[in-house]
């Protein structure tokens, strides 16, 4: 099956500001793909070009086989995609059900309004006027409006910005449910954990370029990076006493052992401690988090390309 989205050498400038500088990626059918990056990285510009809201200066773009810049096929394309935009802007005096029913009428084969209400977690709010919804519920209505046309492809622009932690988990659950229905999803986010929780693949954007791509697990070489074992040195022992060699002493009183063979190294360390009747307090084993990788990637890129900051 052809990809849902193909982008090659896409570029867009606003005056002297080069918001998107020749990026390429593909999104397969049924995949959840995240564009990750700080504000001003070019995510929203990229998304708006794919949604047909903005033109492009250069490059090829195909969305479900259509060129989103082609006005002649705009309506056909819109019937098959769902958009959840950043700004909340819905007619305030209609009820939740009316708002969904209105938009359902715009599509040739919409989802059932009741089904969308359940899917978006709006059960019990059907008769509430939009103006009386809380911010979080409005965002759910937004999501519902994105889903009402039963789209093959859903664009989510920072879907959980401003959510409290439990609302975010709920939203993630909804998105995962959609993956189960086979919906392709392209989302932008500046939250690492969101990309990690949802995306099959991630592209990190910074300064209008894609600076890294991969699955959340292997992004930026995370999978091959050294693991980090940290613990408090037992009283009376120095770092040099450890069988694993010298380790750095951190400011919080913990020592760090870096290793590319964590199973063996951990065995050595715990064996050493057990032989002496010691405990390794506050013991943790981890890898560089996606956040560490991301900050490394975007921080470096931003330092190399301090030019533009805003695509908004």
């Amino acid at each position, binding site marked *: 099956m052809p990809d849902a989205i193909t982008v090659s050498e896409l570029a867009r400038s606003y005056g002297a500001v080069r918001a998107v500088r020749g990026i390429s990626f593909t999104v397969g059918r049924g995949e959840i793909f995240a564009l990750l990056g700080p504000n001003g990285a070019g995510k929203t510009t990229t998304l708006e070009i794919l949604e047909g809201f903005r*033109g492009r200066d250069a490059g090829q773009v195909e969305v479900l086989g259509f060129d989103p810049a082609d006005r002649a096929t705009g309506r056909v394309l819109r019937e098959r995609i769902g958009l959840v935009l950043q*700004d909340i802007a819905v007619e305030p005096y209609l009820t939740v059900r009316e708002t969904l029913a209105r938009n359902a*009428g*715009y599509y040739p084969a919409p989802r059932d309004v009741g089904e969308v209400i359940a899917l978006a977690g709006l059960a019990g709010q059907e008769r509430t006027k939009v103006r009386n919804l809380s911010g979080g519920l409005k965002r759910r209505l937004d999501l519902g409006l994105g889903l009402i*046309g039963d789209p093959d492809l859903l664009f989510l622009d920072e879907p959980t910005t401003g959510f409290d932690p439990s609302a975010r988990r709920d939203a993630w659950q909804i998105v995962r449910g959609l993956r189960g229905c086979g919906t392709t999803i392209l989302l932008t986010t500046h939250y690492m954990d969101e990309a990690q929780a949802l995306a099959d693949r991630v592209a990190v954007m910074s300064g209008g370029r894609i600076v890294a791509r991969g699955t959340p697990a292997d992004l930026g070489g995370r999978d091959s990076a050294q693991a980090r074992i940290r613990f408090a040195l037992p009283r009376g022992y120095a770092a040099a006493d450890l069988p694993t060699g010298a380790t750095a002493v951190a400011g919080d009183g913990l020592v760090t052992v870096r290793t590319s063979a964590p199973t063996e190294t951990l065995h050595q360390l715990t064996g050493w401690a057990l032989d002496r009747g010691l405990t390794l307090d506050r013991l943790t084993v981890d890898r560089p988090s996606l956040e560490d990788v991301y900050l490394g990637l975007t921080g470096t890129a931003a330092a190399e390309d301090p030019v533009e900051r805003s695509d908004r």
Partner: protein
Amino acid sequence: MSTATSRASRRDLALVWHQIRYEQLSFWRNPQSAFFTFVFPVVIITLFGAMFGGVGRSSYFYGLSALQYYVPTIAAVSVLGACYSQLAIVLSTRRQNGMLKRVRATPLPAWAYFLGLLAHCLVVSVVDIALIVGVGRLFGVPLPTQWAAAGAALVLGAASFCALGVAVASVIRNAEAAPAVVQLVLFPLVFISGTYLPIHSGVLDRIAGWLPVRPFNQALLGSFAQHTGVDWKDLGVLLAWGAAGALVAVWRFRWDPRAG
């Protein structure tokens, strides 16, 4: 192929009807806005009735009584308000708060969206006119005689002023400026077109005759009170302005709050 075409056009028709219904629902759901939309023309015509109710036929009012003159001109200015002013302000507000972009995100075609708005403006205009004619009746003004001519003038006028409203909304960049710009254009135009005071200046009449408001006043005066039927020149001028407005609208209209 032809069945597919007819199915598509039937779907489009249903779509327009759907959009008209929800545009109406949104409007009537906001009772304050609905109330004030209709209270203004009623207040004006009642005031004029109180002030000029006793002024009989005179040459100053072209052989009509004062209220016979004012019922059609106030009706005309209420159509201007319902179509031109409201639409310009509503569209710039909806654009600024992102609602237009939201419409653009759906497959609803632009023409269907605008037909929904046009129908809404027509409904408001018709209710306005009915209220004004009704209040006029209370002050003893006879009902309009030439309904067909009045209807034609109304539909054409409403469409043209809607097009001009969209054109102004296309040129205005921010919603806060919209009411001021709308008034700046409308106020002098209404005055030189004889809406509130009959103009007895050949030069002014000729100038105003080529601008959109006076031809509409004349068309309603003719069909409401003067029994003159359809004046093709007036309707032609209106149509030309409507077409000009539509051109500007098609050329300049933006859905996105940000320029792009």
